[in-house]
């Protein structure tokens, strides 16, 4: 990425990147495509491509730095002008400069969530509404947003992802020849930049005129009703929420047709457009029929084994009314959309539809009351204003966290926002008698900083949903326990995430969110059945938390593993599943992440697997059986504290 020349690498000189190129071309042709997301690891030429797009479109590329303030982005007060004329005068923001140009955000997943949402909203609405610090304005912002995310970083929320019309995966060519060619072109470009650009000039010019022609055709481009229904079916198939996907697909298909010089959209256009408009909106992990069958067989065996091992004690059978077996739909199959090389990770929206007929859906079992944290000497040592409330302690000494905004102080001002204070004082300078200072500041000008709250704690529940927990409604108890802890987090406004493991994988059911209610829904939808891939689950949780804690500094993270600890799916097919899991557990160590093991095993014969697991993880250990009433919550809390 160091190779960004003033002119940039020509568009056609960039090797590979077919999908990102396609997406960008579509956006250059069709102004109804406003937002393009490029996913790719660092070094996959995302930035280079965006610059090249600017050159190709003959538009300036306006960059949004990650540490951008709302002030800089949306606009604010021009202090100099305000001082001079005594009236609040607007200083337009980056979004104003982006009008008629291309807006570029690198690593948008690292941008503040609220800022990212406001930004995409402005781009989609073509305008900026500004109500900040004495300035009230509205200005147009017609721009194409090109943003990138690095899949190694934190994930973009699905809400934000949906705001991107198109999303393309930048795949770095793996073969040696391509890599060599890339190097060669780069070297050439650095050495003889002008010659190099000249070399691709004809090609780039041709592409430019193709875009121009396409723009002219676009107005006449038509799409048949038949294809329209194909599109709608496609988006239903991937269970895309809302209609943005359908519309993006149509707009991209139209652009592709126009680029090809046609005024009629064909099926091929639709197929090509689908890969960049629906992939990031899909909501199901499709399972092929063979694989499903294999799993079902596995599960049958699994269940038989369990029945051998755990004789029915006659009190509650597996088919208790407390559980509602629900059969899944059988028509899922592979979507016609090709899967990207880059796996986005298990889908958070995996729904009940993904169940096989042997899966069982357990209701949430008994919950228990949680003692009153708010008045206990709980872990609010961090002063995270964990209770969102108007009576947040004014004497908060918490001056950590990023300065995001300013406000009028309540009571005594401590954490003064100097810039905002000066801006507040600026309009009055002409009328104030000058003191000894350059700028005269009165008490009503004082503004204090609003800092991004270090968001307290994040708790990831790693729930064992394997068949062994289906016995005697154990899963109901587990769900009850998780719910009790969720409720606890709701009060504290901690972030909670849910990951479940069964069969041969661990799945992220819910990305850490403050919406605990959402967690409730997801929790009730977790099906039970299949084997126990404990090792896999530990690795998944560990990988996720390692990444997560890095991108959320200052947050305390916990992983609560709820399992009987009896692994039976090793990663290495020759290994002993339990030994392997213990080995992995002992290797796990992320600073700032604490592990808690809740033993969910039941029956007379006690296994100490979970206890061993806790030891290997150097975490705390609790028995689910002891959980009744509020014991677990207390126990967990004792650790968390």
């Amino acid at each position, binding site marked *: 990425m160091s190779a960004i020349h003033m002119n940039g690498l020509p568009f056609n000189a960039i090797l590979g990147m077919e999908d990102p190129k396609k997406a960008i071309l579509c956006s250059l042709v069709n102004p109804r495509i406003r937002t393009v997301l490029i996913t790719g690891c660092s070094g996959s030429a995302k930035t280079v491509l965006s610059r090249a797009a600017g050159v190709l479109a003959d538009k300036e590329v306006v960059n949004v730095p990650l540490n951008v303030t709302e002030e800089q982005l949306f606009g604010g007060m021009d202090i100099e002008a305000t001082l001079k004329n005594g009236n609040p005068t607007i200083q337009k923001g980056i979004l104003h400069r982006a009008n008629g140009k291309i807006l570029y955000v690198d690593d948008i997943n690292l941008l503040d969530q609220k800022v990212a949402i406001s930004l995409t909203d402005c781009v989609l609405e073509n305008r900026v509404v500004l*109500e900040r610090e*004495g300035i009230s304005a509205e200005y147009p912002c017609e721009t194409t947003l090109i943003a990138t995310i690095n899949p190694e970083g934190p994930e973009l*929320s699905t809400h934000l992802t949906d705001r991107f019309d198109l999303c393309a995966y930048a795949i770095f060519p793996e073969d040696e020849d391509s890599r060599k060619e890339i190097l060669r072109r780069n070297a050439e470009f650095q050495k003889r930049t002008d010659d190099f650009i000249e070399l691709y000039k004809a090609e780039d010019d041709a592409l430019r005129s193709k875009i121009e022609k396409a723009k002219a055709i676009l107005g006449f481009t038509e799409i048949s009703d038949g294809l329209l229904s194909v599109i709608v079916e496609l*988006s239903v198939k991937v269970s895309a929420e809302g209609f943005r996907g359908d519309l993006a697909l149509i707009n991209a298909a139209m652009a592709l047709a126009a680029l090809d010089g046609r005024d009629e959209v064909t099926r091929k256009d639709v197929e090509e457009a689908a890969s960049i408009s629906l992939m990031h909106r899909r909501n199901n992990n499709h399972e092929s029929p063979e694989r499903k069958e294999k799993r079902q067989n596995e599960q049958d065996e699994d269940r038989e084994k369990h029945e051998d091992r755990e004789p029915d004690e006659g009190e509650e059978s597996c088919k208790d009314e407390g559980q509602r077996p629900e059969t899944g739909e059988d028509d899922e199959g592979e979507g016609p959309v090709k899967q990207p090389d880059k796996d986005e990770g298990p889908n958070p929206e995996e729904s009940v539809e993904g169940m096989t007929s042997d899966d069982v859906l357990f209701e949430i079992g008994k919950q228990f009351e949680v003692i009153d944290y708010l008045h206990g000497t709980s872990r609010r040592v961090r002063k995270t204003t964990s209770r*969102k409330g108007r009576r947040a302690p004014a004497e908060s000494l918490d001056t950590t966290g990023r300065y995001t905004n300013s406000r009028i102080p309540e009571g005594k001002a401590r954490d003064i926002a100097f810039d905002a204070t000066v801006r507040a004082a600026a309009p009055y300078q002409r009328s*104030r008698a000058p003191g000894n200072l350059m700028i005269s500041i009165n008490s009503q000008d004082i503004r204090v900083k609003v800092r991004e709250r270090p968001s307290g704690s994040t708790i990831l529940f790693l729930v064992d949903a394997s068949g062994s927990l289906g016995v005697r409604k154990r899963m109901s108890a587990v769900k009850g326990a998780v719910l009790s802890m969720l409720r606890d987090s709701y009060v504290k406004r901690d972030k909670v995430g849910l990951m479940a493991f069964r069969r041969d994988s661990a799945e992220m059911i819910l990305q850490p969110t403050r919406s605990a209610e959402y967690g409730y829904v997801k929790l009730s939808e977790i099906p039970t059945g299949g084997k126990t891939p404990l090792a896999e689950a530990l690795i998944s949780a560990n990988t996720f938390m390692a990444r997560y804690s890095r991108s959320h500094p200052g947050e305390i993270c916990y992983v609560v593993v709820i399992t009987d600890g009896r692994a039976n799916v090793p990663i290495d097919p020759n290994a002993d599943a339990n030994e392997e899991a213990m080995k992995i557990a002992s290797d796990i160590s992320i600073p700032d992440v604490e592990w808690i093991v809740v033993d969910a095993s039941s029956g007379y014969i006690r296994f100490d697997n979970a206890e061993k697991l806790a030891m290997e993880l150097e975490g705390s250990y609790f028995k689910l059986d002891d959980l009744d009433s509020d014991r677990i919550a207390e126990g967990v809390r004792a650790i968390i504290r």
Partner: protein
Amino acid sequence: MDKLLFPFVSIVGQEEMKKALLLNIVDPSIGGVLIKGEKGTAKSTAVRSLAQILPWRNSVEGCAFNCDPSMPGRLCPYCKDKVSLGEELDSVNVRMRVVELPLSATEDRVSGTLDIEHILKTGERKFDPGVLAQANGNLLYIDEVNLLDDHIVDLLLDSAAMGVNYVEREGVSFSHPSRFILVGTMNPEEGDLRPQLLDRFGLSVEVKGDRGTEERMEVVRRRLKFDIDPEDYTERHRGESEELTSRLSKARELLPEVSADDDILRAIVKMTTHFGIDGHRADITMMKAAKANAAMEGRTAVSKEDVEAVAPLTLPHRMRRRPFEEEAFDKEELDRCLQSI
């Protein structure tokens, strides 16, 4: 009108959301709407496009606070001064507006600012009106309302509760009327709404995206037509939009004449009791909404059907539930309850 918005009358389905919005326009005292729903389901589009169908209202000419001349009790200090000096308030007919509160708004722009020095020096009030002044008599829209900063939410709550915006600085205070239809949209995945704010909303609707292929096709087809030629599309729907505006205006005029008999009152109370809702706010809101519904249909007597139509908009978000108990507002139970009345 700079940018054309997709016509409200052309939105496919989403009947509950549309109804909730329209009822509030008929009677702003219902207390606004919270629209929760999946992403990309045209929530924002619907609210913003209300601008095309909002009715006309009277306002004092040149008043920054949009004072209503027919409401002498609710005038801003400037208009009050004029009245006390015996001056006539010139009235103009203006269209209600959709005033947007961006997430990036700062406190001073929301509540407005008081120029204390000017007051101290000259003894004259000097107030720079903010969003809450613009919103008076209009519709205040907050997209992604659950992401709004707490201190901004507090300002809104105060105004929404009292209909007055109080600004106090350094012992000097200023207040002006600020009555508005509060409309918020949010995606629940991004976090919950503070309970205090939730209670403020008179009505709530949940927008779902799961629809049949046919309906989906229609949504996409209409949007496509609009995108290709927004002027033409808007023009084609102008008649329908105007018709809706005049229906709203008529309903607003009719509203004071709408009445409900004791049976209706009993039905409402029975229903809120049945669903275990505390406080009178639900009863009052349901009554207002039912009246507005009757007015929309040109009737002056509230019927059971009106109550039936508005109950799903008033009850769900008020049901006293502990967090995490299923927010299952059971429509069947509602039917049973209605039947028994």
